[in-house]
């Protein structure tokens, strides 16, 4: 029996794996100590759990546990990385580089840094969503101090050439930050090889709890940061505030499971994603957004031309999916990520992101395929744009009465 609505929005957030919840609960009750309490066993027990989790997070990305700083989530990690590095290295230069398709947490932080007197270059991406290394090379300046590029895009799932960008940045002594919130458990991350200086992580995108994340801060060569949250001097002064033990334990367990299971899981999910893509391929004028090869297997972002995204979401309310990214879905703007790919407005407004995950089944995918066939047809019957296209009108030549 199918449970409706079917959850196909794993990039917005994932369920907490039941094995993770089980590990968390004791830390709300009998093991509730404050990890900063140094004078009794409650504190020591909590601290040991925090350090064990730190080891698990480090293992997934092949880093040293001492390089992991706990934060409240990837948004805070991104803020700490960008503001912390920019402010610390401001004496060396004031130019930063990022990409137009980054998450709001990076873009908005860059906007704030601009107000603080930094200069930011926002690079275009290719039509497939990937960053062109030559575009990056051309944007580098003698006063560039920081480059920030996400590992996996949250909307279209494309994987940026992080290894290559790392080489370019390291050779010029530029700090390289990577938002990896969408990457953990989906792509292998080896920080012994990748020349990345700062990397942001989130637990709740990888079957851990919300409210906890981490920032990787490289020790060799050492990267410095100005702290953004001041107080008791937790996390070696990088980030003050009582550590939420149960959430940290949850993130550790979630990342441990990701390390053990991602190989088999990715293959299963790829099969389901491909089944979904093939199932939709016989609907006319359906376009996949973003590169299909250099992409995590969990993501399918498609535009159903001439059907508006929000009404489509209403029509397929049996599917929990998103149009645009979850963080901006209160706004009526079409996805800025799709705009950056050069998608025209109709296609950007018509996109649906399907993201599959650990608990997605074949039955759910088949249900989605059938539902989409029915509803796309109905909405196109309602669409004046579809009618015009059927009549042979080239929409790009129409003078719209913009309002």
């Amino acid at each position, binding site marked *: 029996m199918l449970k409706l*609505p079917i959850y196909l*929005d794993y990039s*917005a*957030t*994932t*369920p*907490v794996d*039941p094995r993770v*919840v089980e590990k968390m*609960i004791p830390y*709300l*009750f*009998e093991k*509730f100590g*404050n990890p*900063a*309490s*140094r*004078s*009794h*066993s*409650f*504190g020591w027990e909590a601290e040991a759990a925090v350090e064990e989790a730190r080891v698990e997070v480090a293992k997934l990305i092949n880093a040293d546990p001492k390089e992991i700083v706990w934060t*409240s*989530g990837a*948004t*805070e990690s*991104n*803020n700490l990385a960008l503001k912390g590095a920019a402010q610390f290295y401001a004496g060396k230069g004031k130019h930063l580089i990022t990409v137009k398709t980054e*998450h*709001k*947490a990076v873009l*908005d932080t860059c906007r*704030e840094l601009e107000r603080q007197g930094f200069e930011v270059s926002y690079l275009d991406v290719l039509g497939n969503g990937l960053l062109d290394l030559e575009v990056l090379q051309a944007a580098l300046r003698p006063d560039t101090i920081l480059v920030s590029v996400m590992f996996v895009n949250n909307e279209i799932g494309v994987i940026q050439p992080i290894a290559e960008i790392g080489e370019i940045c390291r050779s010029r002594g530029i700090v390289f930050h990577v938002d990896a919130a969408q990457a953990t458990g989906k792509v292998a991350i080896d920080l012994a090889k990748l020349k990345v200086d700062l990397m942001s992580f989130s637990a*709740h995108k990888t079957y851990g*709890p*919300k*409210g*906890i994340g981490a920032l990787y801060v490289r020790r060799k060569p050492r990267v410095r940061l100005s702290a953004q*949250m*001041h*107080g*008791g*001097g937790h996390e070696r002064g990088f980030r*003050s*505030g*009582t*550590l*939420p*033990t*149960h959430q940290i334990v949850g993130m550790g367990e979630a990342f441990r499971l990701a390390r053990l299971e991602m190989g088999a899981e990715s293959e299963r999910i790829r099969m389901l994603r491909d089944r979904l893509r093939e199932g939709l391929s016989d609907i006319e004028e359906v376009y996949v957004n973003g590169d299909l090869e250099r992409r995590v297997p969990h993501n399918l972002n498609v535009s159903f031309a001439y059907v508006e995204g929000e009404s489509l*979401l209403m029509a397929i*309310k049996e*599917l*929990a999916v*998103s149009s645009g990214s*979850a*963080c*901006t*879905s209160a706004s009526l703007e079409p996805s800025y990520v799709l705009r950056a790919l050069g998608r025209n407005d109709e296609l950007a407004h018509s996109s649906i992101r399907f993201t599959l995950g650990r608990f997605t089944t074949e039955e759910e995918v088949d249900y989605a395929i059938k539902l989409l066939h029915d509803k796309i047809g109905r909405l196109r019957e309602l669409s004046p744009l579809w009618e015009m296209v059927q009549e042979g009108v080239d929409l790009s030549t129409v003078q719209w009465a913009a309002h």
Partner: protein
Amino acid sequence: MFAPVYLDHNATTPADAAVVDAMLPWLSLQFGNPSSRHEYGRAARRAIDHARRQVAAAVGAQPGEIVFTSGGSEANNLLIKGAAACFKPGILAVGASEHPCVIKPAEQIARRGWTLHRLAVDSEGRIDMDAFAAVMALKPKIVSVMLANNETGVLQEIELLAAMARRAGALFHSDAVQAVGKVAVDFRQLNAAGVQALTLSAHKFGGPKGAAALVMDKRVDLEALIAGGGHERGLRSGTENVAAIVGFGVACELAVQRCAEVAPRLLALRERLEERLLKLGAIVFGRAAERLPNTVFFAFPELDGETVVGQLDRAGYAIASGAACSSANPEPSHVLRAMGVGPDLARGALRVSFGSGNTPEQVNGFLDALQTTVARLRQLTAMAV
């Protein structure tokens, strides 16, 4: 099994069973991102809205006045730095016995052209009114004084201080993380007196770690500390910690319901403890001041606090030496130093903070263990001389 007795509730508290029960659905089937528009997301959004109303009701505020954060430290950082960003640099004044997460952000602001005044406290830990008035005469723009001190439990006359700050034209904030559940906190009443923002933290009163709030008069201008998706009216971006926020809401409701019943019990425990502590020759800090009913901060002259704490831990009693957050710091308590306590005595300070689950029997047991420890250590000290 050996279960130690926990007497360190100002550091953190166990979550109430009802709080965890309320949280669990949000860690399992109800896992949506509150920003998602599908039913999973909307359910999570409704849960946050409900928790916001619970938190607001518990402290007499409006739901629109609650900004959720990841913890008390973040809320204090947000208020101090966020408010400072909206002013031209001027004077900022914070209590000398504030928590480091107020003092350190204030020091950061001081590096950006602000002048920082540390508001002196008297020997009992109360803000010195004359000194306070003198600083207000300088027309500070931001003033922050905690409602209850985490180490001594000393309560400040917040309404009086806020009224003076308001007359000086200052924004007045109070860190109330130690107050909720132990004394009545009414934001409307405080707001009428001139308090424009309060900090609350769930894990100090039976809620989970990872959820806290800034309660703030909507007329206060604030710049966000964490930029991004524009959550919490743009004041705090980042996917909401739904489960912890839900737990926070329930913990608030319970704390306020139980406060009238719990506070006298805590006070009875405190009095029982203090009476015998004094007989044992301890000095109780802030004893003449109005204090939280659950907190006793004390020291035995000539005895090393760390040693006492270690012995008590082995005897099965968990207490604190100094404040938890700065326990890694070997410096004597800045709170006691501000009260004029000498460094040697301050280094020996011990804190007992009760919770609603503690019993008179536990206090007696603790006192017996303490008496034994103190006697043995005194003997050793005497032999060494």
